């Protein structure tokens, strides 16, 4: 007879029941082989024993036989649906697969059959935190505290759970109860110190400043809070919020501790009723006096000197900026210009700086090529030229900048900064090939410096030289990595991934571009997963303040520019793919350039090498591979499979989803959301996206294109509507099927707010053009719209060529976009435009005839002899 409450199918005879305990024991000790053997012994007699099947599956998973393991676990659960062991194992496996939602469901099942199991409860709490299910988290933490009130961490965990739910009052109550019962706190207890600081933070967030201050002072005095600087920071902040006269003294103490911290000066000044971000004329003299006093007190600190430059005006500014510039030029501070750039918002300060530095240069100038006279410090001379080059380039005077740099390089040909900046100026002038060449020269001057190396790689990518970029990156990546690119991806280098993706896109390789953009998405997914371990760890270590900071960072993770850029760019590729599915099949070898084919071959070779090495590795069956799947080998080295994967629009929608809350003020994001929503026939979402874009910038050219697109797709007038289901927006698509009635209602309610109902789209377009006829991007947008409305190609071409008119503002970026548009509509006038644009941007190379590009690319790699000699000197 099995013991009461145990279903007969689970009960085992004494011998097997002993064996099962052994299985559990072996698993805990990670003696996987023995565990497997013992489980098999049970299953031989009882092949349908659910718990044993699950344990065997778990062990196999740890041994790397993941699919087989998962299958057994699923079987085991089916055989014994009321066993907490089966559900717990299933939950563990799902957690290992990062499938947190399903894992939590399994844990919830497990708790139904063993409600006070501490391990399961703790794991469930971590899953609830990961999934931000804070109500459920409070419940779980409550149960854990009830079961083990003697554990410090259970109290703190409950308080944190309340805090996360936004229930600060409860959070405070739990901390008070905890502090009342806690006994025998040893001296110098870092954990207790952190808990008390957390308590004070809770009070501060509750705006109970007096209470917070009292608690802080008590525990500072009793030395229960250890970190003296933390005490000072909390004190200064709280006193400021209380508007106490003591605040000033507290900030002063912090400045003495770290005179390079901007926040402390800001705090000090605010205690004197001065807002550093909004200094008015009547408080200016007082503010300046305070800063000058700090300069006297901390002559080595840069912060008060620099702040004085922000605060001062007129003659006083000139008096202060002269020594500031001079000392730093003498020292050769490369970041001096970046440091001062923010002051350029004031034309008066900008001009003052220019005249001071030019005056300084005049005292240093000497005959070019002649040796520097002994009265002149050559370092000051070089750094002054360098500063002025940055100054003039920043103001758009690139020719002047180049002239200054050439003088400097002729004088001192060994300073990499000069070459790097020369490259940057060329980049700004639209010459990515020359830019890459100059930055490469900078790199060759100091081959040990990874910073110069990374710049060189980036500039090669900007010039479309992908293989050559990866080659140069490879000088610093790990030698045992599959490839330099793989190492950079593994090390989560967003800078590299973004630049390579963009380069692939510019080179027309959509498959590889998509692959790299999605690699960025994967990096962010990993960042999100990374927090999981800390839901337990931080509570055990009591580092609560930084942990809450971590959760907040995670919640806003995808507002990072790299994610936003990658999501938008990838969604554009996916939308293109939806509009023209032939793109996916065209991404075969025949369309690849020579370099791309070479890259593909290389990738295949690398792949083979990895597989061979994997075979060589000794296969110990007892080796614990953990529950998390290791990175699968790259089955899609050239991205073709990604391009051919189904449902491009659904994938795009998923990528863009986080942007709707985290990149609300980015108009490109809303345009991308619209492009996907309208094709998924999510009309309401499409209209909302247009509204957001409209609120951000009503006259945006990209928005203009979408407004017309929307009306054409949804207008009540069937003559204007394109086929909603063919999803082509080109002219001449068949006109049929109206959108759904309810959709029509929504649309007709919203549309008039965005564009006038009674006007024809052609008229609306010309109105837009007229209004913005001097803006290059608007001229292009209007041409795109008239192309979509079916205007003859010649007319569209003529319209777009207007960007070259003297009265139209045109930057290189827009000119490149115009060229891309002409290429897209297969205009015979593309080369004509390129040649005209090449004349307009005289120092650019992006508009040279296509035939000349290979030669240009080669030139980007050809480094003149000067630097090659240098290389020899260094090595």
């Amino acid at each position, binding site marked *: 007879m099995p013991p009461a409450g145990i279903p007969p199918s689970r009960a085992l005879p004494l011998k097997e029941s002993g064996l099962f305990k052994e299985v559990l024991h072996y698993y805990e000790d990670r003696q996987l082989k023995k565990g497997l053997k013992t489980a098999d012994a049970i299953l031989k007699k009882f092949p349908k024993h659910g718990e044993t099947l699950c344990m065997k599956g778990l062990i196999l998973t740890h041994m790397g036989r993941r699919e087989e393991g998962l299958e057994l676990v699923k079987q085991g659960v089916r055989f014994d649906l009321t066993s907490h062991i089966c559900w717990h194992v299933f939950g563990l496996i799902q957690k290992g697969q990062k499938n947190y939602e399903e894992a939590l469901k399994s844990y919830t099942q497990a708790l139904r059959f063993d409600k006070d199991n501490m391990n399961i409860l703790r794991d469930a709490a971590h899953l609830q935190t990961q999934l931000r299910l804070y109500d459920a988290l409070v419940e779980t933490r409550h149960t854990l505290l009830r079961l083990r009130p003697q554990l410090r961490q259970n109290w703190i965990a409950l308080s944190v759970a309340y805090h996360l739910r936004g229930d600060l009052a409860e959070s405070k109550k739990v901390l008070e109860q905890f502090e009342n019962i806690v006994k025998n706190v040893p001296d110098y207890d870092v954990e207790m110190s952190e808990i008390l600081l957390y308590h004070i933070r809770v009070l501060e967030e509750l705006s109970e400043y007096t209470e917070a201050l009292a608690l802080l002072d008590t525990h500072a005095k009793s030395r229960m809070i250890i970190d003296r600087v933390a005490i000072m920071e909390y004190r200064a902040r709280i006193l400021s919020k209380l508007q106490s006269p003591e605040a000033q003294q507290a900030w002063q103490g912090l400045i003495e501790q770290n005179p390079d911290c*901007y926040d402390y000066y800001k705090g000090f000044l605010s205690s004197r009723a001065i807002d550093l971000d909004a200094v008015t004329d009547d408080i200016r003299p007082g503010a300046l006096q305070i800063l000058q006093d700090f300069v006297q007190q901390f002559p080595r600190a840069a912060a008060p000197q620099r702040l004085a430059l922000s605060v001062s005006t007129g003659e006083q500014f000139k008096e202060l900026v002269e020594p500031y510039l001079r000392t730093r030029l003498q020292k050769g501070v490369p970041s001096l210009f970046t440091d001062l750039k923010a002051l350029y918002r004031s034309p008066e300060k900008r001009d003052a700086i220019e005249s001071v530095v030019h005056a300084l240069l005049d005292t240093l100038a000497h005959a070019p090529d002649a040796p520097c006279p002994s009265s002149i410090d050559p370092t000051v001379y070089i750094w002054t030229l360098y500063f002025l080059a940055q100054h003039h380039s920043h103001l758009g005077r690139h020719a002047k900048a180049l002239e200054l740099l050439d003088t400097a390089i002729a004088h001192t040909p060994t300073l990499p900064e000069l070459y790097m900046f020369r490259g940057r100026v060329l980049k700004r002038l639209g010459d990515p090939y020359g830019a890459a060449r100059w930055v490469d020269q900078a790199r060759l001057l100091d081959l040990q410096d*990874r910073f110069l190396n990374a710049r060189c790689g980036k500039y090669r990518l900007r010039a479309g030289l992908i293989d050559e970029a990866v080659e140069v990156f490879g000088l610093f990546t790990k030698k045992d990595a599959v490839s330099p690119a793989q190492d950079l991806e593994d090390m989560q280098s967003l800078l590299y991934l973004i630049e390579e993706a963009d380069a692939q896109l510019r080179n027309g390789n959509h498959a590889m571009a998509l692959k790299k953009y999605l690699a960025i998405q994967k990096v962010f997914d990993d960042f999100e997963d990374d927090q999981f371990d800390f839901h337990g760890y931080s509570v055990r270590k009591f580092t609560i303040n930084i942990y809450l900071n971590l959760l907040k960072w995670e919640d806003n993770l995808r507002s990072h520019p790299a994610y936003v850029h990658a999501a938008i760019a990838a969604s554009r590729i996916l939308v293109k793919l939806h509009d023209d599915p032939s793109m996916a099949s065209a991404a075969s070898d025949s369309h690849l350039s020579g370099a791309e084919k070479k890259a593909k071959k290389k990738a295949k070779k690398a792949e083979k090498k990895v597989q061979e090495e994997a075979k060589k590795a000794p296969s110990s069956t007892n080796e614990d591979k953990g529950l998390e799947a290791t990175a699968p080998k790259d089955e899609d080295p050239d991205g073709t499979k990604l391009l051919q994967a189904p449902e491009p629009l659904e994938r795009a929608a998923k990528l863009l989803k986080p942007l709707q809350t985290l990149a609300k003020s980015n108009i490109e994001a809303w345009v991308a959301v619209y492009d996907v929503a309208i094709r998924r026939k999510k009309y309401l979402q499409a209209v909302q996206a247009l509204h957001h874009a409209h609120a951000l910038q009503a006259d945006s050219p990209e928005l203009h294109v979408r407004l017309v697109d929307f009306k054409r797709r949804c207008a009540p007038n069937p003559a204007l509507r394109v086929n909603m289901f063919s999803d082509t927006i080109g002219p001449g698509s068949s006109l049929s099927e109206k959108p759904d009635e309810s959709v029509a209602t929504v649309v007709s309610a919203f549309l008039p707010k965005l564009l006038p109902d009674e006007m024809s789209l052609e008229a609306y377009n010309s109105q837009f053009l007229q209004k913005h006829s001097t803006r290059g991007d608007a001229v292009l947008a209007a041409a795109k719209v008239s192309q979509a409305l079916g205007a003859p190609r010649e007319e569209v071409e003529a319209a777009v060529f207007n960007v070259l008119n003297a009265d139209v503002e045109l930057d290189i970026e827009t000119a490149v976009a115009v060229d891309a548009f002409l290429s897209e509509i297969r205009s015979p006038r593309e080369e004509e435009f390129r040649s005209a644009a090449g004349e307009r941007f005289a120092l650019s190379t992006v508009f040279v005839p296509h035939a000349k590009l290979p030669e240009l690319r080669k030139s980007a790699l050809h480094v003149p002899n000067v630097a090659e000699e240098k290389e020899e000197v260094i090595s």
Partner: protein
Amino acid sequence: MVNIRVARADDLQAMQACNLQNLPENYTMRYYLFYLLSCPQVSYVAEEDGKVVGYILVRMEDDVREGEEPRGHVVSISVLRSYRRLGLAKRLMVQSQEAMARVYRASCVMLHVRKSNRAALGLYRDTLKFNVHDTEKGYYADGEDAYVMRRSLRGVL
């Protein structure tokens, strides 16, 4: 204007990016998170307009035996080339060392450096006043030896 302050969780991505531009020893985010969340008081950043231009990432050594005093360990320190000559490495180190001594009562701080990295060696020895304490054979993944460098924290507070 470069600002020096204690590192926060939302600095880690920028610290990682800074590290990748400067040094050949790189780490995934998990490592950064682990170090910062174990000892959040001892890592610092130098930032300008929200961009991290230098950082020091520090952990406390956990293999300290009974009776021994705690030791700090510099996992990584670097400053972007374009922000040199502002004394940032030194300023970061000073703040971090004080925090190690203040919060954890650390008696000394250690770091590893590649034997071949003469530039870094110079920085640690001449500017930051570390001494070569020991050599660790094959410390780096590629088999290179490391110098173990050490600096006493007596008197920093």
